């Protein structure tokens, strides 16, 4: 029901309970929020930094006791401010918003799953691996994570735990850890060897674009999480438009078919705050 939805997702405040430094530029913030505790992997929330900004962040974890975490990279004013905040300080939350990653429809313990994360994009994938795939209990789980250099590789502890019976492939541009290069290289190799029931990715758009092209070539099913400038977060203002889709409401998760419909914009152009399109440098 319309009214209840609006009222239900009104802004509420909460206090930062814990802050974990994940890397020189990434921190994880933990706080309580009842509504987001019901979030599914891939959904995001709008985080209000009082007096500064309100920004979209993927939900990194949501536990039954109502604890939520988000993992944030300091890239500009808002994220830097958040990094400077301390526990017990007040933030505001709306959400969870958007759709979520869905498990493939396969028999239990049969699925072969691949996850590919770049930067903080690894966060929702970890959430997915930990809780979102529980219904299908994958037979095999492969995780590719990339970073510029070793000390920017995120969540390694979590990753090792999750991939105990799976496979973990790391890539660094400078070769300080794992494969030297970018995630698409091990991906191409893997796809030429095996078939996956589902491939999930989240990370820089240019990476997502390359992964999309690779999976298309090998006809493999992809679910990719996209990022766009967001303001309302509820499908109204149009700021997050890509093709005919609103990333905040129709996404942030898109499948091959949808990605194909928006391939003229994916990794190529973005809406500016004023609504005009900019073409990004790398195409």
């Amino acid at each position, binding site marked *: 029901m*319309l*009214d209840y*939805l*609006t*009222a239900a*997702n*009104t*802004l509420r*405040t909460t206090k930062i309970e814990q802050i974990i430094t994940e890397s020189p530029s990434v921190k994880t913030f933990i706080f309580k929020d009842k509504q987001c505790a019901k979030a599914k992997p891939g959904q995001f929330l*709008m985080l*209000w930094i*009082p*007096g*500064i*900004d*309100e*920004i979209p962040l993927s939900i990194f974890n949501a536990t039954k006791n109502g604890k939520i975490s988000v993992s944030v990279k300091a890239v500009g004013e808002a994220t830097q401010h958040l990094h400077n905040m301390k526990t017990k300080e*007040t933030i*505001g939350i*709306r959400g969870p918003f958007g759709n979520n990653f869905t498990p493939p429809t396969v028999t239990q313990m049969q699925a072969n799953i691949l996850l590919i994360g770049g930067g903080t994009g690894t966060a929702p994938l970890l959430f997915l691996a930990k809780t979102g795939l529980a219904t299908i209990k994958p037979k095999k789980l492969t995780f590719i994570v990339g970073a510029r250099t070793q000390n920017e590789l995120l969540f390694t502890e979590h990753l090792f735990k999750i991939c105990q019976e799976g496979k973990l492939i790391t890539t660094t541009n400078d070769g300080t850890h794992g494969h030297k290069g970018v995630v698409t290289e091990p991906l191409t190799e893997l796809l030429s060897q095996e078939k996956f029931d589902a491939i999930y990715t989240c990370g820089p758009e240019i990476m997502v674009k390359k992964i999309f092209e690779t999976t298309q070539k090998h006809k493999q099913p992809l679910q990719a999480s996209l990022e766009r400038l967001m*303001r*309302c*977060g*509820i*499908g*109204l*203002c*149009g*700021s997050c*438009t890509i*093709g*005919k889709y*609103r990333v905040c*409401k129709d996404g942030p998760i898109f499948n091959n078919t949808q990605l194909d419909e928006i391939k003229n914009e994916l990794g190529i152009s973005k*809406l*500016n*705050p*004023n*609504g*005009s399109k900019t073409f990004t440098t790398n195409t």
Partner: protein
Amino acid sequence: MEGNLRVQLAGLTFSYPCMLASGVLGYSAETMQRVIEAGAGAVVSKSVGLKARDGYTNPTVFQAKNGLINAMGLPNPGIETYVKEIRHVKELICQPLIVSIFGYSAEDYAIVAEKAATAGADALELNVSCPHVKQTGAEIGQNPNVLSEVVKAVKAAVNIPVFVKLSPNVTDITLLANAAVNAGADALTAVNTLKAIAIDIETTKPVLSNIKGGLSGPAMKNIALRCVYDLKEKLPNTPIIGCGGVSNWQDAIEFFLAGANAIQIGTAIAYEGPEVFQTINLGIKKYLEKKQFRSIEEIVGLSHRR
């Protein structure tokens, strides 16, 4: 399904009576196409001005009880850039495209209007009622003389129908309406958002970065409905486009009965998705059939009969 849902207004024909309200999903041609495919009879673009504006920092939207408070700050790419989008929209859709424009002076409005019309707009909607951007909107739409001047300048610059979007934040909306109509407005859109504010008690601060905003959605429905009723009473022959809080077909019917010839939908899209157009069309159609009305026109203003 078309048939009896067609409405005509200011020389334009709309296959369906509900349009997309300005400022909602109105940037890109593809989303507008999607809205049309979902059953909208027309789209109104995001309000466009002479120069690009980034709008305000977030939070720009506050989800209030049964409504939404927004202060986007009129983000828009400026008319020079937007003309390309207008042309693109016209390639994609064959329903009317109404370009919403704003300005800081009558000249501004006239220049933007001329460019929008040349690029292919089927009609213009003058946003003279944005309640939270200084020196446009409110200041223009609350003063009959200034409003009249703006409408005249635009009418002189273009040959397409000109709608004036009225503010509910006035002592007597019919006075402004009168000024607009006398200056040549072809139709009235009633109404824009209501002046409102949201304050957070934990931080003791206003939530929106612009502090003040405009309320839309269900909370304002019966207020917007009253504006339409009052306008129909005073200006029975001027086409009215009802706007404010419509979220289901019953609301739409209420607006027709109050005097609206067509309606616009904004906030409801956040909850129901663009599919809300289809649902509302269906509901209106069933109502007309059940009550044996042959067209929407037959029920426009019916609540005024004693």
